């Protein structure tokens, strides 16, 4: 996948983009965040799917991690912040916990993105497993500390396993998306 801004492929003098083209670029750039927000909204809707509550953090962390590594312009820090706020408002846990976790995952992905984006997909999977393990442990610790008793860890373990298992699948979807509909260079 080509990075968002590759100056060597762009000519120095370009025609001023028309309004529609700019809208197109904007929508392609914003698509990952919008789709993630939509997934968050859908997963907090009453569908009655088993494991729905545990699915949400896995998908959110996968999406934030993937796009932060491969296209930070589409998943910038303020956008991650807004997504975290949305999840915290839709959930019933102590407010701010998921927000902090998501921001930290975003920060880790950003700081290591030059290594991660060149790594093999299996290595990236391992890295994501480690990062999401840390994130889930942090979430569990924070929720336990803020509610002043030890929350059963088994639900969080399930959530972590679900997220790690979903990551390769989501990687395929995201990279297909990043090459086609969410690619600003194609506008």
């Amino acid at each position, binding site marked *: 996948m080509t990075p968002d801004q590759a100056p060597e492929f762009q000519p120095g003098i370009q025609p001023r983009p028309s309004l529609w083209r700019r809208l197109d670029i904007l929508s392609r750039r914003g698509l990952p965040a919008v789709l993630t927000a939509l997934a968050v*909204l*859908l997963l907090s*809707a*009453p*569908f*009655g799917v088993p494991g729905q509550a545990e699915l949400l953090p896995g998908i959110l962390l996968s999406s934030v991690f993937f796009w932060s590594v491969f296209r930070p312009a589409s998943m*910038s*820090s*303020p956008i*991650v*912040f807004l997504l*975290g*706020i949305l999840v*915290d*408002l*839709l959930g*019933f846990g*102590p*407010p*701010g*916990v998921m*927000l*902090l976790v998501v*921001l*930290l995952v*975003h*920060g880790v992905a*950003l700081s290591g993105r030059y290594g991660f984006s060149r790594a093999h997909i299996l290595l990236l999977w391992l890295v994501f497993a480690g990062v999401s393990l840390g994130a889930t442990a942090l979430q569990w610790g*924070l929720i336990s500390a*803020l509610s002043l008793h030890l929350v059963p860890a088994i639900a969080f373990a399930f959530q972590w396993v679900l997220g790690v298992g979903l990551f390769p699948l989501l990687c395929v979807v995201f990279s297909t998306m990043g090459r086609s509909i969410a690619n600003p260079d194609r506008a």
Partner: protein
Amino acid sequence: MIPLSITLRQALERLVLPILIVAALGIILLGQADRSLTERVRMGLADILAPAYGLVVWPQEQARTLLDRMRDMGRIEAENQRLRAENANLRHWYDVAAALADENASLKANLHWMPDPSPSFVTGRVVRDTSGLYARSVLVAANVDAGIHKDEIVLDGSGLVGRVTEIGSRSVRVLLITDASSRIPVRLEVSHGAAIMAGDNSGTPRLIYYPQDNPPIEGERVVTNGEIDTMPPGLPVGQIHYVRPGQPVVIPFASLGHLDIVRVFDYGRSTVVPPDAPGRIPVRRPADSLSLPFPSPLRRG
């Protein structure tokens, strides 16, 4: 956009994430300090999303009802068989019931049975527990114009609650059977003894004046006696329980601790009027004997 130097812009961009993380920590602290704020914001968002969630739920419900109906259609044959058998069974019982009703009517006719007048009642909600340290009473919101009088009987779904003592314009005060000033004549259903149930401000009224040679039996039902006006016999009151030997109390059937909806019954004043004793001459009042058989001229002027 404000023109900034590249280094300054890079420094600002590097600052965004730490600032946001600090903001997240702030939100955690704020959420711990002011829980009601979090709840309000969450409820606001939920209110906004509620129609969308409704749109999500609607097709699910439709699909579920459709599936249920299809499943029911599959089961319709077995269901029909079962209903036919049950119908035959019920028809038999209907015949039995009709025959018994006929028999009962003819027996009652032969006995010159006078049916009890069916009582009228008003239903109201208990709005306030006015119980204090020394009294047990509640306020019932009921339309007083519907005809609530003093001394009427208040029942909830399972038993006797108390008696109406005071009547306001929109509510009536009900003295509970647990109040220390409540005395209700009762009958014990198994041992057939009569007694007085006296409240003592606790949850279980005491039983006093019960026959000493025929003591109440643990667990037997207590019903009203019908010896006082306005209270018919046979209303369920409670159950006998011995807290210690020789001290029976009544555990009321009505949930007096958390009354919700009660009915105020009008059984009519003096349901059973005693006839005049035979062979007794009505006593003349002294004032009557002094009245003159002709109009007094003094009273005219």
